[in-house]
């Protein structure tokens, strides 16, 4: 019975429609970023990744086949992991439906897809409960969706010839901007517009002149730090994944069998930790914006 309750919780975490909404937002942002080409560093990094001759990429071949611009390559990669994610979500949903309707739990393989998905859902559920002090908060959906999307994107990057979308700055900025918009929106919704703006200027200081000057200073600093949040989130993920990818590429040139396989294990660790860090930091940002304990 306890296991059953946990499973239904996990199903709520893996709400497919919420996944779809969040990922559609990500795609819209990524398309606008890729088309707009607004940041010079994005162009520089994607060119650097695309022009090096040592990487063969299926997405690039696909883009050439449909005569698309090479800027769409990370987008194709993201689409591929969205398709994988949808397949996993539907399979898990079918499993949970089967358990709910038949009421019996068959023993599953230790590393089967359902067990891994459920472990991750359970983990994120506990994390969300610690962060938001609620057993079924809507913010946990965002964290779980981010974790799954980034994990699967990173893991596809470990397969040969499939460069991950998370190794590209603009694609990551798309994901991080979704987080940015959502936590600001949720902060305004729970606290009201004026008090949300007011919480940028820190606590009240009861000293005559400093009490007037300090909030202005703090407001400017806070606005800058909030604006830098999506950039730092996406830079961290991009640097880790791109660096790991390059490392595997360099070591594959040295020897085909033993050395790259050790680095691939390291790559799995990096993918897990980075997905965890990204989703945890987004959860902390949401919790900071939503909490009104001042």
């Amino acid at each position, binding site marked *: 019975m306890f296991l059953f309750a946990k499973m239904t919780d996990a199903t709520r975490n893996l709400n497919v429609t919420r996944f779809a909404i969040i990922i559609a937002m990500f795609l819209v942002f990524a398309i606008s970023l890729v088309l707009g080409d607004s940041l010079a*560093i994005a162009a*520089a990094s994607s060119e*650097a990744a695309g022009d090096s001759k040592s990487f063969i990429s299926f997405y690039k071949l696909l883009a050439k086949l449909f005569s698309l611009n090479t800027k769409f390559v990370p987008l194709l990669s993201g689409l591929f992991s969205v398709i994988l994610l949808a397949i996993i979500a539907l399979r898990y949903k079918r499993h949970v439906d089967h358990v709910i309707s038949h009421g019996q739990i068959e023993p599953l393989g230790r590393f089967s897809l359902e067990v891994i998905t459920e472990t991750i859902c359970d983990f994120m559920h506990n*994390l969300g409960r*610690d962060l938001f002090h609620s057993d079924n908060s809507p913010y946990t959906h965002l964290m779980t969706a981010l974790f799954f999307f980034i994990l699967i994107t990173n893991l596809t990057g470990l397969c040969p010839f499939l460069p991950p979308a998370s190794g590209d700055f603009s694609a990551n900025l798309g994901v991080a901007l979704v987080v940015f918009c959502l936590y600001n929106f949720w902060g305004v919704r729970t606290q009201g517009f004026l008090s949300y703006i007011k919480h940028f200027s820190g606590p009240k200081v009861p000293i005559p002149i400093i009490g007037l000057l300090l909030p202005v200073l703090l407001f400017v600093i806070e606005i800058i730090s909030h604006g830098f949040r999506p950039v*730092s989130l996406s*830079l*961290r993920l991009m*640097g*880790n994944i791109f*660096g790991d990818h390059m490392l595997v590429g360099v070591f594959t040139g040295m020897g085909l069998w033993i050395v790259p396989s050790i680095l691939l294990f390291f790559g799995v660790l990096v993918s897990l*930790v*980075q997905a*965890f*860090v990204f989703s*945890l*930091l987004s959860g902390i940002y949401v919790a900071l914006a939503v909490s009104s304990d001042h």
Partner: protein
Amino acid sequence: MSQGIVALAAGLAIAIGAFGAATAQSRAAAATFEGVTRNPASKDAVFTPFILALAFMEFQAILSFIVAFLLIQGMGS
């Protein structure tokens, strides 16, 4: 001449960045292990802040990696 200096700058950037990040991470890991071995019940409470702290420290090394990479990329043109 200038290409050599740029290559040296890239190498120094990643070297100093990695040195700082590795020192900081080793201190954090040592403190965490010491705390967990003293009090094994604190393992769950320590895990998340530990990973977060490691990620923040690693970000500096990642920034220096990106700077070094951009320097090397700019060297060819």
